[in-house]
């Protein structure tokens, strides 16, 4: 039973402490960053990738191999999609020069944005 499992209590302790850390760290995020926060934390739970790798590495038989393979694909989507989307969002929050000295550069950047979004799904950002 539970008492016979010395590791379990340690894991539960870690779980409780991590819950407090997560709550405290995030309680200081300003509301303008809530969407990037949701996306960023979404990327972090992509750590399930490590778990899926261990599972697939140990898998035997078709059923386990298939499920494990699917799990690794899904987890990879979570990781790369999560971080790339968040990075794109945060790219827009990069410190811009607050003075108005560089209107040319800013206008250029703005035009690029307008063109690619106007181009619809066939846009070619790289």
């Amino acid at each position, binding site marked *: 039973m539970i008492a016979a499992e010395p590791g379990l209590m340690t894991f539960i302790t870690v779980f409780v402490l991590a819950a407090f850390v997560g709550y405290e760290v995030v309680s200081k995020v300003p*509301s303008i960053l809530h969407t990037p926060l949701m996306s960023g934390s979404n990327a972090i739970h992509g750590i399930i990738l490590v778990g899926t790798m261990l599972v697939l590495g140990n898998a035997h038989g078709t059923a386990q191999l298939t499920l494990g393979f699917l*799990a690794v694909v899904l987890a990879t989507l979570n990781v790369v999609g999560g971080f790339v989307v968040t990075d794109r969002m945060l790219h827009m929050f990069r410190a811009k020069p607050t003075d108005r000295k560089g209107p040319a550069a800013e206008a250029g950047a703005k035009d690029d944005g307008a063109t690619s979004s106007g181009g619809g799904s066939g846009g070619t950002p790289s």
Partner: protein
Amino acid sequence: MSRGTATDLVYLIAIVGFILALKGLSSPKRARLGNLVGAGGMLVAVAWTFSLPEVYSHTRNLVLIIVAIAIGAVIGVPSARLVKMTAMPQMVAIFNGVGGGAAALVSVTEFISAPNKSLAIYRIIEILFGVLVGSVSLAGSAIAFAKLQELMTGRPITYPAQQPINAAIGVAIVALLVVTVVTASTTVLVIVLVLSLVLGAIFVLPIGGADTPVLISLLNAFTGLAVAASGFTLDSTLLIVAGTLVGASGTLLTRMMSQAMGRSLTNILFSAFGSVVTASGADADAAGRSVRSGTADDIGVLLAYARKVAIIPGYGLAVAQAQHTARELADALAARGVEVYYAIHPVAGRMPGHMNVLLAEANVPYDQLEEMDDANQDLSTTDVALVVGANDTVNPAAKNTPGSPIYGMPIINADLATNIVFLKRSMRPGFAGIDNELLYDPKTTMLFGDAKDSLSKLVAAVKAA
């Protein structure tokens, strides 16, 4: 140093990276760096995992892992790069859902790979939790994605005896969980998995419109907890900590979002908000009233000769991809010496902060963005409140009509401005499906049409004025 200790140490570094990532999000300046630190932590953890004998000792399995990661990356990177900024909420939903699915699959695979009935009871409970929560998150996120992508109606979907049917499925799942713990039967576990998917879908169906982002945030927290459960199953501190960090932060964010809407989470999740509203809305009351509609030229003059203009953007602006045009209008007005600011409601757009992202994309300077509380102080001295594709976030019913479903939600007090201009496609109500009495206010002028077209016309009118 043993390999086990080294692994723990590397994973600890990854954990610190994740915490720093969340901390970095506290400021716009450090947020991007924070996200990169988080990605770095992820990279280190995944790279190190390849050095573990569990992963590399079977060559065939190792090849499968590499192929699977390659497939995921090939699908994930382009879709994440090409998606439009307005489609971000559904991208977050789907990337969240696949994480939940992966966690559920980990739990299922661990269950079937264990020698028959050798699992301790607490192990089975951990697995069941991972399967249940992960599947709910996967199916729920898929429905939320379909709603936001407009593959299905975004409105709440209700059917007869909805609550009893949902409750029955819930009870069935609980009963089957107990059966699984007792019998350790794989068949029963598969039934639990299927029913959990059904539960996730029917849980989300009646939630629609403006409530969908709150839901995605909650599902994000769910996936975090499912990952933590997988961490317990795999004895992995890394997964427990990272999953729990997300579970806690997602829960907090969900609460903050419901608070911004002035409603309790229970109300959002179980009240089938929009459907009730359209039935009981104030349409009878509104029928006899007239609205004043103006031309772009009239409104252009009004704006050009104002001293202070507030732009109040809503999701309509995002849908029309009009954030760049809005900035052009602001620049044109600023060039004439008009003071312009954007009044941002916390839930403008479809997610908290979504509007800030969109305006930042259009290079709107930070100092022109005003959060709701600041904006509400400035609006009484503002000459024109230009409401672009927003509706519920300026609806005075939230203050004045105790019976209204949005009563108590903080709003932007556009009604304090001397003049109000609405750019709207039609008189159709907003996400929440509630009529807006402000549209009938004598101070209000309507300019009907697509937000981007209307704004372009206003830019021309202001320049001509």
